């Protein structure tokens, strides 16, 4: 994927600077914790790991989540980690198999695509860091704009990651909806008819695929999208 040169340059030096250092504020002097960390701890009901207040404010600004939601997300995320890693929850990565045990994702037919889209792991193993997790919750929250939601919905539905929804993508999408298993799939004729109808409704330039703009256009007229594209912890 093409990456702008500016970003590459920034990535090298800016990466470490802005990231929250969760370990820094925990203990001071005689072992008493600082007031801000204590506030975060009190809000979370005394669990072992802490989310620094500065990071909390930053996440509030950069995502659509409220303070309670971020703290709850932190709690749930640290529960996915083994006990030894919980102190560094902010920088740890949770393997995909663990993420999929969350009840919100367990029953979701798009679970693999969600992990793939939101994971920023360079290894391609779809593991998620805490910030990826927050990203995901932010996009799926109540207050996210429909622009953001439709953008990410497009990426989730784009099974082959080629930037357009072609017939194969649509077929996989419908199969995800109707369920795994042979008897729950639509017949070939029905699938053809369905894909034909979808393309008729949404493919404006009639090239046989749906690009992002067409998708966002059709979603803006879909009354159910905002209420169904939602995950709340």
């Amino acid at each position, binding site marked *: *994927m*093409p*990456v*702008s040169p*500016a*970003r590459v340059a920034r990535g090298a030096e800016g990466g470490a*600077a*802005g*990231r929250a250092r969760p370990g820094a504020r925990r203990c001071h002097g005689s072992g008493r914790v600082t007031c801000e960390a204590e506030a975060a701890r009190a809000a979370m009901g005394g669990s072992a790991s802490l989310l620094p207040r500065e990071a909390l404010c930053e996440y509030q*600004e*950069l995502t*659509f989540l*409220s303070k*309670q939601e971020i703290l709850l997300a932190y709690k749930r995320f640290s529960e996915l980690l083994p006990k030894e890693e919980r102190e560094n929850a902010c920088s740890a990565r949770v393997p995909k198999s663990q993420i999929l045990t969350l*009840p*919100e994702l367990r*029953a*979701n*037919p*798009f679970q693999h695509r969600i992990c793939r889209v939101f994971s*920023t792991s360079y290894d391609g193993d779809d593991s998620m860091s805490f*910030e990826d997790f*927050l990203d995901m919750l*932010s996009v*799926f929250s109540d207050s996210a704009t429909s*622009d*953001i939601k439709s*953008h990410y919905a497009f990426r989730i*539905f784009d099974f082959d990651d080629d*930037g*357009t929804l072609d017939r194969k993508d649509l077929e996989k999408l*419908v199969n995800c*909806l*109707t*369920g795994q298993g042979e008897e*729950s799939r*639509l017949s070939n004729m*029905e699938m053809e008819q*369905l894909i034909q*109808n*979808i393309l008729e*409704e*949404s493919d*404006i*330039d*009639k090239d046989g695929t749906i*690009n*992002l*703009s*067409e998708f966002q256009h059709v*979603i803006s*007229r*879909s*009354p*159910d*999208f905002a*209420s*169904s594209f*939602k995950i*709340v912890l």
Partner: protein
Amino acid sequence: SLAEVFLPEETRAAAPVDFLQELPSYQSALRRRAAAGGTQERRTAPQGSAGLRAAEARGPEQEGGELGVRPAREYPLSIAEKRRDCQQADIKYLSGWKQWKRTSSKSLKKVLNEAKELSSYLELWRHDIRSIEGKFGTGIQSYFSFLRFLVLLNFIIFILMFSFVTLPTIISEYGIFNSSFAKIPPKNIEPHCTVYKPSGNKGLVYFYTYLKDLLSGTGFLEVTSLFYGYYTIDAAWLSILRYNLPLAYLLATFAYLALSLLWIIKRSGEGFKQNLVHDEDQFQSYCNKVFAGWDFCITDPNAAQLKHRSLQYELQTDLEEERLKRKIADRTMKEKLRIYSLRIFINIIVIAVLSGCFYSIYRATVFSQENSNDVSNTNFQANLLVQYLPSMVITLANFIAPQIFSFLIRFEDYSPAFEIRLTLMRCIFVRLANIGVLLFSLWSQISYCATDKCKACGYNYELYPCWESEVGQEMYKLMIFDFIIILAVTLFIDFPRKLLVTHCSCKPVQWCGLQEFGISDNVLEIIYGQTICWIGTFFSPLLPAIATIKYFIIFYVKKISLMHTRKPAARPVRASSSNFFFLVVLLIGLVLAFIPLGISIAHIPSSKACGPFRSFNTSWAVVPDTILGFPTGLQQVLHSIASEAFAVPFFMVICLVMFYFIALAGAHKRVVEQLREQLVMVRFDPVFCTPKV
């Protein structure tokens, strides 16, 4: 090579996007965004190719560091990338004024967020509705949200009526805050019309009389502030202020009707817009079903399994329906004739069924009124039965008629979606018209005048000295009975059925199975109750309080019933179309409630023996009376507004405005069509296509 794959696609994809940005909907969205923060000529519509990431990166750079224009979180980037862009923006030098603006807007946003978080704790039943959504999906959740809306609406109506009507009466009657009251001066009314002696249960009475009174609103309840007859005060004096109670009573009635209307319209704003603007049946569109089909909030694997099945069923049914439509278009003339004559015949049967219902309600009401006025109460149970006869007949009709309709519609050979809608329309009509028939039969009894003495009063003064209280009592009985039936059905039908299905494994029982949670049936039930409440509040000001408590309890009853004794519907109900449908039917109920109230207030003479409108001809007459007390200038203004010289030009102006908007919408539609055609042509235009390397 990489360039070969990406470059032509990017340039090719650029052109359609330009055209998409000419669309009127996009332009208006742009205008709205520009008004919200800063000017932008071209939004970065990220390209359709794999240059997605590049386009995203381009976004914030084009902004030039003015991230205050569009908050960082609205960019489709990961947190790390947004943080870097924020820092990039921070590095740039911002003037002192701009920095102050940014920090103040940030702190304002923080304060608003805190306020929103606090107010979300006050939301009623937030956790319950979330858990229902997780287990059953958004369709059923919309029913419970609707129930919550009705609880709040009824509570607000109660507060309105209580504070403007009941509270001043109670304060002045008991002399709190140094208040006093003035009784209505006796005008030249026939003395026989003013005789009203409610029994009030003096002396030693049996215990069951209290129970009977509680259930039918007579006896000791009749003289309380629950009913219209209690409010006999003309004006209350709170220190030096004169509080005109009759006027307040009438205006509070209009206020709660207007409040309900505005609140419902506001709530259904979105649904109306969607439905009116688009010609195609947007709720049924395939894109909506596929792209917005899955409820991401489902957490229960069983519910997910059910959702898969229902989605499969829905898609298959819709595809089949489309094939059916094509077949219908190929029908021969002979077949069409046969089907239309069959439909006319079935509609005649439907009308016959409806007439049967209405006639039986009429007879039951007349019988009940004639026999319950016999003061010689022989049997407690028989008397109660007679009192509740109209309610029972209505409930029976509401139960039987839909079954008949869903049986008949199979012969009419409509498409499945239309079948459902037509049955629903017929059921709605039955339920709401039943209330109308009840009220009509009550009025025919009340205004039946044979003797001259009776005609002098304007209503049947012997049987109904205080007819508004009678009507209030009927509405009260309907509401109580409705509540009892809902509880009884859950206790005595749903739970035993569940026990039977779980413990008895014989074939017929298992084939029957659990009942589905029929959303439309449940919604019609509560809308029926709400219509009764709207009509009855004028005659019984404390009725909304009873309605609030009733719906509050029904929420928990329905929730328990849903969780333990029901299975979800096979055909999924979509949240958007449900919300729209609920509010449209509620609106129909409200408009239908206007009619009986209008007739009672303006047409039927108010009773001269009780109530605040004793000295007026009709209840409405208090308004012209008050206007006559205004200064002459104001009177003239009001008279001119109500005259024809104002009304006719006003009507014409409204028509012109309407025609303007229709023409505008037509022009927009034409532009959209032209642009669509151009988009298709552009693909083959040699200017935009670069040959592949």
